[in-house]
């Protein structure tokens, strides 16, 4: 009995470094395995894909808000790349926005990298607006004319010199708006943009913040939702099956996420079994 108790005590109070090593191996090793290649898209991710196809049919540009910084880069950058790949492969023009100062150069680099893959030209096929504070006012002004807030694009050229923008003025000239963020910014887009100007809106967010957007999906204020690494992988899966585009970081990261989640679930189960056994033993002793 005492020997059993000793083991239980040892396992229940196991050094946290052991837990850390196990989680490190479960997350790091899968990067050297083959990436996940098949994943079933949810209806909200499929809705985003279909809307992008609709943008290609109507030949209207889209807006993507790159509102993330390095802390949420791992989840949101694969999403941004997948969306940009879809847009550029279907010749959809993209206007990039940013309201997170730390994410400005990340967004510019991501847009440039994906544009290069498809031979797209800055100013003609895509353009990026610089960071501005007071996003609520910028979003309200955008409903009338974005030139009220922006006078030049990210690289410093006046907006008059950008051919892509010549016939564009406000939300009505774009097919939809997508915001990628781990912050509250998608809610701001809904409050100041969707409520007043009624454009089609999609959010790409981190998995932990996904729950707060479901009311907007039900109310129709949001037409699609991409959540976390899995959402990015689902979008990549759609691109692979329907457009034969190669998969990216989303699929690659899913192997790590799979093993990470499984290890955490196993920890929860083992921890509870040990707790239950310990409690029964204590009751028997009493």
């Amino acid at each position, binding site marked *: 009995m005492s020997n059993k108790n000793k083991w239980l005590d040892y396992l229940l109070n196991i050094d946290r470094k052991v*837990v850390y090593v196990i989680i490190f191996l479960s*997350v790091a090793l899968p990067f050297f395995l083959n990436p996940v290649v098949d994943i079933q898209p949810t209806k909200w991710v499929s809705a985003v894909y279909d809307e992008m196809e609709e943008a290609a049919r109507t030949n209207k540009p889209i807006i993507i808000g790159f509102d993330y910084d390095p802390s949420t880069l791992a989840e949101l950058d694969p999403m941004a790349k997948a969306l940009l790949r879809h847009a550029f492969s279907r010749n959809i023009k993209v206007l990039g926005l940013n309201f997170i100062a730390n994410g400005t*150069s990340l967004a*510019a680099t991501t847009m440039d990298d994906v544009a290069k893959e498809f031979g797209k030209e800055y100013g003609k096929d895509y353009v990026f607006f610089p960071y501005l504070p007071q996003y609520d006012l910028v979003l309200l002004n955008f409903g009338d004319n974005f030139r009220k807030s922006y006078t030049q694009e990210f*690289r410093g050229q006046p907006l008059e010199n950008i051919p892509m923008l010549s016939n564009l003025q406000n939300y009505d000239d774009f097919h939809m708006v997508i915001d990628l963020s781990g912050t509250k910014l998608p809610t701001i887009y809904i409050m100041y943009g969707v409520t007043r100007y009624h454009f089609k809106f999609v959010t790409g967010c981190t998995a932990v913040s996904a729950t707060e957007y479901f009311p907007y999906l039900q109310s129709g204020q949001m037409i699609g939702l991409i959540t976390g690494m899995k959402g990015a992988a689902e979008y990549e899966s759609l691109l692979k099956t329907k457009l034969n585009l190669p998969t990216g970081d989303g699929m690659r990261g899913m192997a790590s996420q799979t093993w990470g989640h499984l290890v955490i679930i196993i920890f929860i189960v083992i*921890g509870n079994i040990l707790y239950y056994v310990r409690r029964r033993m204590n009751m028997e002793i009493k």
Partner: protein
Amino acid sequence: MFFKKTVPFIFTLSVGIFSFFYYFMPHAFMQDLWDKASQWAIIIGGGAMFVGVISMVRAYYKRATNKSDPNRYFAMLTIVCFIAMTVIGLITGIKPGSLFNDIFVGIMIPCEATMFSLLAFYIASAAFRSFRLKSFSAGLLLFSAIILMLAQIPTGENISPAIPWLKGWILDYPNVAAQRAILIGIAIGSVATALKIILGIDKSIYAGVGGK
């Protein structure tokens, strides 16, 4: 007190009333006024960031020069890094390809991503030590967490199609009900707070009044 309390109150009241009427009256005159006001606000927003920077430097300078503070070297490092990045940014610019951007991409991104990824280790450790089936509420939380974690990986679909379905049900019904209640509560609270500030009932926002 006139400039600290009365003048800000007059400004707040006028801007509050104007913003309210602008939203419901899309008249050309209101639009012109709004355009100018919003440009001012964006400029003031930029200025506020500058004030924040001054405040940060003052706070860290105070700590860096306090010889009894054992963490003063971190404060010194913060000030040195701040000055270095400002000077480099002013000289080389901040666009991709500049030294400023290279430092940001090479140091800031890995550091911030590392800090965030440490969460995985803490969550795993906490899951093992503290996530216990001690009551019915804890059981609900445990059950939902396991279903959502399984549904967020391809293994969930492979185990059973019921897992993604159950995840959808949890998110679409109990989650939306709770989120709506929270959202409505926040909205009513925000309206009440805004009205208190606009009408001058809540004076804690004015300089020298807060905290009293």
